[in-house]
């Protein structure tokens, strides 16, 4: 077990290294000069040179990378070119909002997906299953920004029940979460449905049935517990990707999170901020994956790592 975790951690480090190198290469391929942009038009060439020097942009790219990584090991993500603020501080000021939103979206997915999964599994191949499955498929096909704006228009403006975007407390979280929940729940629903159907066919369920246990008891006590395993797996990976995946929701609902920060940074060639956000989200994704693998060992006795 311990060696498994160590090996996975080692792999994680390699992955993060790969990500940092790739991001760095990518950034330097963007054809614009941050120093020129910071300096403004009336700045003399000397000023621009000075800015470039101050930012370390006059060094060769590999040296810049090494410098960057050197600072990184001291927990220093650098200073934003545009905002003149430490990247750590910028990220921290936005991270909370994104975590909040990602959690909201995730819970909405589960709250919609799991009951529907149970429902469709119990009604498998009945008309109600088909109707719900078809609706779920349509929901899956909706672009979030489209659904988001429509929801906001009808439930924020025409009927002012919810705030019109922004992150200001619990009520402002409902519409964005719902938007993501509706489009993302279908995956959970289908996953749970198929794993429920599989579990229901297994011997121990048959035994339980034979012993005369009620159908509800079978589902809640026996089937669901085991059927949830793949849902948990997917769920933990999902929440990792959600942290970088809610960017469209952020853009639609004026949610000032990490995604918007990264988006802006790319447009302005704000290298330290791009690096910081990309690395942070990647670390989170990798950590969630690692966590899943480890949790798996405890949850599912069939899996062994040695």
């Amino acid at each position, binding site marked *: 077990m311990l060696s498994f975790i160590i090996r996975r951690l080692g792999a994680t480090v390699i992955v993060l290294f790969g990500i940092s190198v790739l991001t760095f290469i990518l950034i330097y391929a963007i054809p614009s000069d941050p120093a020129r942009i910071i300096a*403004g*038009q*009336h*700045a003399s060439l000397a*000023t621009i040179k000075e800015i470039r020097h101050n930012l370390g942009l006059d060094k060769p790219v590999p040296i810049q990378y090494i410098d960057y990584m050197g600072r990184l090991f001291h927990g220093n993500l650098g200073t934003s070119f545009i905002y*003149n603020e430490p990247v750590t501080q910028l990220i921290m*000021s936005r991270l909370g909002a994104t975590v909040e939103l990602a959690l909201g979206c995730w819970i909405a997915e589960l709250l919609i997906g799991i009951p529907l999964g149970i429902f469709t599994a119990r009604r498998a191949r009945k008309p109600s299953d088909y109707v719900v499955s078809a609706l779920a498929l349509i929901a899956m096909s909706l672009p979030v920004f489209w659904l988001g704006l429509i929801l906001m228009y009808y439930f924020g403006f025409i009927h002012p029940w919810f705030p019109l975007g922004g992150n200001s407390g619990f009520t402002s979280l409902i519409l964005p979460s719902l938007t993501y929940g509706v489009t993302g729940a279908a995956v959970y629903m289908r996953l749970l449905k198929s794993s429920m159907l599989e579990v229901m066919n297994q011997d121990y369920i048959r035994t339980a049935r034979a012993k005369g246990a009620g159908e509800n008891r079978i589902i809640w006590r026996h089937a669901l517990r085991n059927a949830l395993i793949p849902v948990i797996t997917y769920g933990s990976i999902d929440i990792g990707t959600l942290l970088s995946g809610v960017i469209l929701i952020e853009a639609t609902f004026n949610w000032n999170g990490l995604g918007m920060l990264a988006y802006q940074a790319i447009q302005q060639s704000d290298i330290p901020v791009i690096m910081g956000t990309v690395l942070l989200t990647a670390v989170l994704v990798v950590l969630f994956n690692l966590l899943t693998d480890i949790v798996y060992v405890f949850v599912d006795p069939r899996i062994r790592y040695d």
Partner: protein
Amino acid sequence: MARKLWKTGTAVGASIAALGLLAVGITTHASTPKATVAGNADAVSSGKPTPGGSITLDTDGDFKDLDPALAYDTISGEIVDQMYNPLVTYKGTTSQLTGDLASSWKVSKDGKTYTFQIRPGVKFWNGDPVTAQSFVDEFQRVLSPSVGSPGEGFLDPIVVGSTAYNKGKAKTVSGIKAIGKYTLQIKLTKPEPFFLQVLAMPFFSAVDQAFIDKVGNKAFDSQTAMGTGPFELSKYTGTQVVLKKNPDYFMKDKYGNRLPYLDQITINVNKNDQVDALHFEDGQTALIADLFAGIPSSVYPTFLNSPTLKKDIIKAPSNATYYLGLNNKLAPFNNVKVRQAVEYAINKQRIVQLLNNRFMVADQPLPPGIDGYMKNLPASVDYKYNPAKAKALLKQSGVKDLNVTLYSENTADAEKIDDQIQSDMNAVGFHVKIDSMDWNSFLTLTEKGKAQAFQLAWIQDFPDASDFLNTLFNSNEIASGNNASMYDNKQVDSWLNEAETDTNQAQRIQLYDKATVQIMKDAPWVPLYYGEFVYAVQPWVHGFYINPTLMDPLQAIWIDKSHQ
């Protein structure tokens, strides 16, 4: 390449002109409603201002800088203008200069020495006094390479000793001196007729050097502020700014009330324009003005279509010119006939229609609000839409390869216009390919002279013809990237250079007229349309007006919901 657009791109920067302080001294040059309120009758308020209350505003861009030496985009400019004051500013809606922190000033006969009397008794929010040294400090900061101010080029090399200081060869700027507590003297290497307009830019505001030394330059730009302005910084998070009233602000209105009226202003970063429009429709926000560079074009038709919203729109001309640049050094536009053909090929009226008739068709580089604009262009350079003539000119030119790539920023407006230019030019025989990209990449490309044709705008820094004609057409501005069409005409250069130092305004205008005609003859640009401020103001917001050079007059507005 409007400098104002520098950091923000045309989408965001598309309206405001030069920064400058809006702390219009209402006591000294009474901004009577008649004189100052533009456009909308609803905004004209009858009755006395009522102090108190607070407003909320949205912005669709980012707050980048708090430091007046660094702020150079409209959004940072809006808050910096509330917090700091320069020496001079503009009266009401006009381009007429008036004292701000300077109570009076003198210019020597040779036009090279400026002496300012600083308003005595003014204090920073922390109680530190404002003196002539407060300005000397800021001038030095602007000139220091370590600060990296975009305002540096406005002083260097025109101010005596500026270059030596910038290069680190002198400890002080020899041309800038505090003579006694309240007298500031600035010496120039040669006369500059628009130097006072330069000084009205917020780069050159009074700062509290003791405070900056304590917090450091970085924090002074990204966390905290210390100024003299009507509003103090109360909260700054990058996504939200809260400004609260400075109770000791030095300006009073004509009734003797101390400005500002509002207790608090909250500005939220909300990047989705559609939602921002809903906020305004809902009455949650007070204005859609400088923080948006006007009503965003994507929501403008929504305003047009709603009878109530339509009444909230106010307009005023901005000093900005939007143009199609033709690179004089690259084929096929190295041929003047080909360039002239484009002048005739473009249907500008249609472009204006595409933009919901918000703007005015342009016929020359200078906008009508700038002294030197020619009301009657000679017929030979007054190009009107005429595809037949364009075809004929192309034929005369004998140029066969008419493949052109048109570059622009990837905003909705620019792309709409791209499409129109493409179909207009193709109709007369060009083969136009469109390449639109993000603002920074676009700018880098055009500045290096690699773009054959490009769509760009210039928005004034200060209201003077020099800021358009000299900056954009003098061949010595090719290196800086301002003259992106690589226009190079020695005769025009000599007229422009002469006008740079001529202190006789009438003579200057004559020089600029000659230059305008020659430039239009050479056709390095197709002027497309002139900018316009198109703002939305709630009927319960009073005292709002538009100065083409300054930011929103937030210190002069008050709210009264019973009085609409």
